């Protein structure tokens, strides 16, 4: 009798849990979000999540999509780790029933996630995942369900290397990258190729290890080589700030230049003015007032700092909503087709000119420069737009 009662209770419980989920599934369209929500890069992961949440709130307030269906964000912590991110994607698709996913910002996570997306036929959109293999596999085949919203390592590297020679005329360079870091080494390689192709010469090339905080041994060698410019290709704002401070402490006063990995609001603050006059090349984003307004709103509402990732999260949701509307359906394959059919997407990170054959966007870049204001605030300001180069 007891066993029978337990069985009945269990069935009731399962039905009770399943029924609301099923009815909710009819009214809402679920979009997944994967990012580092708890580890050392949670600053970006959470910023992306907040941006996506805000976008969903805006779209729902305006009536939702497909004649009143509401969107719902289902965030999951990928911890910036490839295995955790892949597991999170599987769970979101099989257990939560998402129709599309946004994130992560790491190529190391999105490369294995792309195969899962293809297998389960749900489109995913990488945010700052810039390695070529995110959308195209090693055999040169397109991952049909994997998209991205950022430029490739090759693109940003070429823009940085060319800008340093042609616009700044700094012809004696030093390159500083992280040993074993896919993004750092790849962007560094493309900076080097473009820099040398435009007449620049490298007088020093140094590396550190991921997570290092001491760069003075390498800086001593760079100082001896006396470069006009040091390309510092690291994504971690704390490492970049420490590098800049140690360089200035060692009386290395030349230009330090970075890529989009420098695009963190924390960097200017942490560097304490050591980066004044230094520049980095990134996406247009924060050169636009509407992007700044949106990011300010996110900071005010959710806390944290003003990060580009909140724009990626926001744009990802709007792009998916746009694809659902154009497809007239929330079926994952129909969304995929609509995403692929996108020619130009106007977002807060800038204008993305999409390529259906590679799923890679091309966009204009913005050069930002650090400075300290009269009241002592450390800021970055847009100084020049580099137009997009469309193949």
């Amino acid at each position, binding site marked *: 009798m007891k066993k029978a009662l337990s069985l009945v209770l269990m069935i009731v419980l399962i039905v009770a849990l399943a029924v609301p989920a099923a009815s909710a599934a009819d009214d809402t369209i679920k979009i997944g979000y994967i990012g*580092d929500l*708890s*580890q*050392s*890069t*949670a*600053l970006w992961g*959470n910023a992306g999540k907040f941006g996506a949440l805000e976008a969903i709130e805006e779209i729902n307030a305006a009536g939702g999509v497909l004649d009143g269906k509401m969107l719902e964000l289902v965030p999951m912590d990928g911890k910036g780790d490839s295995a955790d991110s892949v597991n999170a994607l599987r769970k979101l698709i099989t257990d939560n029933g998402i129709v599309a996913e946004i994130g992560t910002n790491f190529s190391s996570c999105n490369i294995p996630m792309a195969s899962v997306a293809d297998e389960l036929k749900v489109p995913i959109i990488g945010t700052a995942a810039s390695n070529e293999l995110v959308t195209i596999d090693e055999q040169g085949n397109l991952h049909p369900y994997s998209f991205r919203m950022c430029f490739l390592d090759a693109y940003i590297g070429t823009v940085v290397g060319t800008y340093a020679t042609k616009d700044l005329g700094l012809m004696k360079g030093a390159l500083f990258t992280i*040993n074993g870091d896919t993004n750092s080494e790849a962007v560094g390689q493309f900076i080097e190729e473009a820099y040398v192709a435009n007449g620049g010469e490298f007088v020093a090339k*140094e*590396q*550190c*290890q991921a997570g*290092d*905080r*001491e760069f*003075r*041994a*390498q800086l*001593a*060698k760079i100082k*001896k080589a006396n470069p006009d410019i040091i390309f510092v290709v690291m994504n971690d*704002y*704390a490492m970049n700030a*420490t590098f800049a*401070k*140690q360089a*200035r*402490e*060692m*009386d290395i006063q030349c230009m330090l230049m970075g890529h989009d990995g420098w695009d963190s609001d*924390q960097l200017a603050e*942490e560097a*304490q*003015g*050591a980066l004044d006059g230094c520049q980095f090349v990134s996406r247009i984003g924060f050169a636009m007032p509407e992007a700044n307004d949106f990011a300010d709103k996110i900071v005010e509402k959710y806390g944290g700092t003003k990060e580009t990732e909140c724009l990626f999260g926001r744009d990802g949701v709007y792009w998916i909503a746009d694809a659902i509307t154009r497809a007239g359906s929330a079926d994952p394959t129909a969304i995929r087709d609509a995403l692929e059919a996108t020619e130009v997407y106007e977002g807060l990170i800038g204008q993305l000119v999409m390529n259906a054959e590679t799923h890679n966007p091309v966009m204009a870049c913005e050069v930002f420069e650090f400075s300290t204001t009269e009241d002592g605030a450390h800021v970055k300001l847009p100084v020049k737009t580099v137009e997009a180069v469309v193949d």
Partner: protein
Amino acid sequence: MFLQQLITGISIGGIYALLATGYSLIYSLLDFSNWAHGEFAMLGAYFAIVFANMVGLPFMLAALLGVCGGALISFLCEKLVYRHIRSTGAPNMFLMIGAMGLSTIFQQVANLVFTGQYRSFKFKLPVSTIEIAGAYLGVLDLISLVLTAVILVFLIYLINKTKFGLNVRAIACNANAARVLGVRVDRSIASVFLLAGSLAGVAGILYGMKYNVFPTMGNIGLKAFVASVVGGLGSVPGAIVGSLLLGVLETFVSGYISSSLRDFFSFALLIVLLLVKPSGLFGVDVQDKA
């Protein structure tokens, strides 16, 4: 360039030394490596961040409370975990496994409470340097070096010239004999954990001021442990020399060979020493511990 690399190496070694001495002190008493020691540094730094940035206390007071926080956590670990494991008569391996567990728990707790985001003290020294014969030393590095030197001299005095030090050395030599002779063993061990925890707290705060505070910053303890083995586990002077040697070696390898090979050389040094002189550079035997 040589002088610059030497100064940088000593500066790095100074931070290692504050942690390595803690490893050595505890090893000298209990014959186990306290793998949670690096986390005492991390927690001490977080205590200081909370008091300085969130509560709004003056930095020096917050730093002092941070040091006390590191000491308190270390003391509680001994009181609530290690002492109980010892009382069961379990092998020392169990203490080490317990320490590994505590290390992971502390990292996870810090992650949950503070998230993985980097934290930095609102109080900042200006980016400025002192030039010594063409080499540059940051003001914070100089302060850090002087403070470390003063603390380590005091520590050596404490171990060699005070009754507390005599008790510690007696326990290190033979705990049972010390107990028979009236030394309050558990109390002395608890005091050593307080001392080691406060040293770790100082190291954590200095590290946090120089760089940042984050949940995995205690991993620097691994290097400090290597330094204490190189110097001779159980020897405080050995731990100091080992730390300076390791700091300088790492800097010279990064500067003259390749930063990619830095850890290779550090651990190769450890292996070679274990093969050639397993007791470490200072070659301490049981009688000379601490």
